[in-house]
């Protein structure tokens, strides 16, 4: 079966006065129908830039290379007309800050209806009825009243529900959620994650969940890709990566993600040092400078992702667990 989204050897570079920032490096990922892919990494790891490239919404100084296939069609380098037919309809994205993603001077109803008027040539009346139905579906209480509200009249959690509802109006096959809960409270965060899960089941949606929080991704994702300095360093099935993390970076990240189940410690575990400068190309492993297992070879030779392509359907727990490391932890 064809994956619905297939990214191959994606490279994203930004030209700046200080040099060329190589933000995404040789990223290969695929997303199956109805599947949820989690992408995890620190700020600056390239996780957002990779999917902004998929949406074709990067800044003008970006140079994108590689291949991005959506439903079997190459969309990298496609014309704006072609992209506009797909974006917001079949391929949608929800961002971290629900306030700045909504237009402040239009009511929720108008903004939502507009999506259908533009993409499906619906009449405003029909579009507004569909918007109302969608607000109900994303569990917005008193939906009819909220349609007449402006974004600032809603709480952060409600706004994020509206964003998710808006992105689902044209029945997309892929929803990319970029840190959808980072700006929200713990309790609201749990509600939004639950909503995404329900929408996935109800609509057969394929989901990309981008986050820096492993605990959040772990609740939803079938497969998880860990990114560091623009590269995928480890990829595995969702549950597997937590019990059997192989890359020292993943292990360190897991240690930092304290939850209430772990014992109370004297000091919180931290990750020392900084990610590398992305304008430079290091000969060896990007993580070597911060890694406790690094040896001489790590600084000299770049470790390749052990299985170059990750077949999402062949998720045999142990066999499909590529890792880019010379000294991985044994699971």
């Amino acid at each position, binding site marked *: 079966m064809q994956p619905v989204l297939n990214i191959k050897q994606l490279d994203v570079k930004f030209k700046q006065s200080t040099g060329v920032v190589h933000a995404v490096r040789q990223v290969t990922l695929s997303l199956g129908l109805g599947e949820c892919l989690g992408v995890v990494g*620190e*700020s600056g790891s390239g996780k957002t830039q990779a999917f902004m490239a998929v949406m074709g919404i990067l800044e003008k100084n970006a140079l994108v290379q590689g291949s991005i296939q959506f439903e079997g069609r190459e969309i990298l380098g496609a014309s704006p007309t072609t992209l506009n037919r797909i974006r917001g309809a079949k391929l949608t994205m929800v961002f971290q800050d629900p306030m700045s993603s909504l237009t402040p001077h239009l009511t929720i109803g108008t903004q939502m209806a507009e999506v259908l008027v533009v993409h499906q040539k619906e009449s405003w009346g029909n579009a507004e009825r569909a918007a109302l139905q969608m607000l109900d579906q994303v569990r917005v209480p008193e939906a009819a009243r909220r349609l007449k509200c402006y974004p600032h009249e809603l*709480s*952060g959690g409600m706004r994020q529900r509206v964003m998710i509802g808006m992105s689902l109006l044209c029945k997309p096959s892929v929803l990319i959620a970029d840190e959808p809960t980072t700006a*929200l*409270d*713990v*309790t*609201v*965060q*749990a*509600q939004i*994650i*639950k909503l995404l*899960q329900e929408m996935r089941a109800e609509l057969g949606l394929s989901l990309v969940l981008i986050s*820096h*929080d*492993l*605990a*959040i991704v*772990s*609740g*939803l994702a079938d497969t998880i890709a860990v990114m560091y300095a623009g590269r995928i360093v480890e990829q595995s099935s*969702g*549950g597997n990566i*937590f*019990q059997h993390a192989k890359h020292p970076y993943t292990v*360190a*990240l*897991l240690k*930092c*993600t*304290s*939850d*209430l*189940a772990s014992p*109370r*410690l004297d*000091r*919180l*575990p*931290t*990750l020392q040092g*900084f990610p590398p400068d992305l304008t430079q190309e290091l000969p060896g492993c990007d993580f070597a400078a911060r890694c406790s297992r690094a040896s001489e070879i790590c600084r000299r030779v770049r470790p390749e992702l052990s299985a170059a392509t990750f077949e999402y359907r062949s998720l045999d727990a142990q066999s499909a667990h590529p890792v880019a490391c010379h000294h991985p932890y044994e699971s």
Partner: protein
Amino acid sequence: MIHSPLLQVSDLCVQFGAFTAVNPVSFDLNEGETLGLVGESGSGKSSLARAILRLVPATGVVLWKSENILACSHQRLRRLRRDLSIIFQDPLASLNPRMQVGDLLAEPLHIFEPALSHNERQRRILKMLDRVGLHANMLTQYPHEFSGGQCQRIGVARAMMLQPQLLVCDEPVSSLDVSIQGQIVNLLVDLQIEFNTAMLFISHNMAVVRHISDRVLVMYRGQLVESASCDTLFAAPVHPYTRALLAAVPVIGATAARPSAML
């Protein structure tokens, strides 16, 4: 020997127009103690913290070493603020973008210790910069040149410059990466022990609150709904809201958000 608390808050109310942000709230804070304050957005955590420092209008009594902060003269208030400090959530927005790091750190000294010689001031600034893990060559840089974690270190350095007796931390790690959060929390704990500073630590990150607090207050819709020692609160939460809050915390490796956690 019985110590009277450093800070005694009684019947503190914050009202914005017709909206009541904080209903009568009372609690104590002892010297060197860390009090966690949790609750969802809009529950009144920040309003409470700001009211204590008299940054927003409030009614009630805030006794700081038996002096009412809410009733003292502005002159007196300025003097008291030497010992009261605050760190905000957004590290970049809370630093003046047009000031170099050196000037940002010198400002509290200029205001509260104007008699200090130039050399002594520089010595104190460099010592604090080193203490929070930043390099001396960063003194002439501007806030936008730093990462979020580094900006928060500058914020911590500025807040601790005068070795305050009370530090209010309003979501100090919420906008930072998981890997950086631990560094900032550890730094706060180290400085707190060194200066014997009492802390009011606001966060919705329950794991961090559990780590840092001696006691925890839970707020819901402007009211204190539970107050307990840290261990008691996390082991045996009593109020239904506290239970829901704890149940909503994601657990690594758990396969789904649990419906019981929904509010």
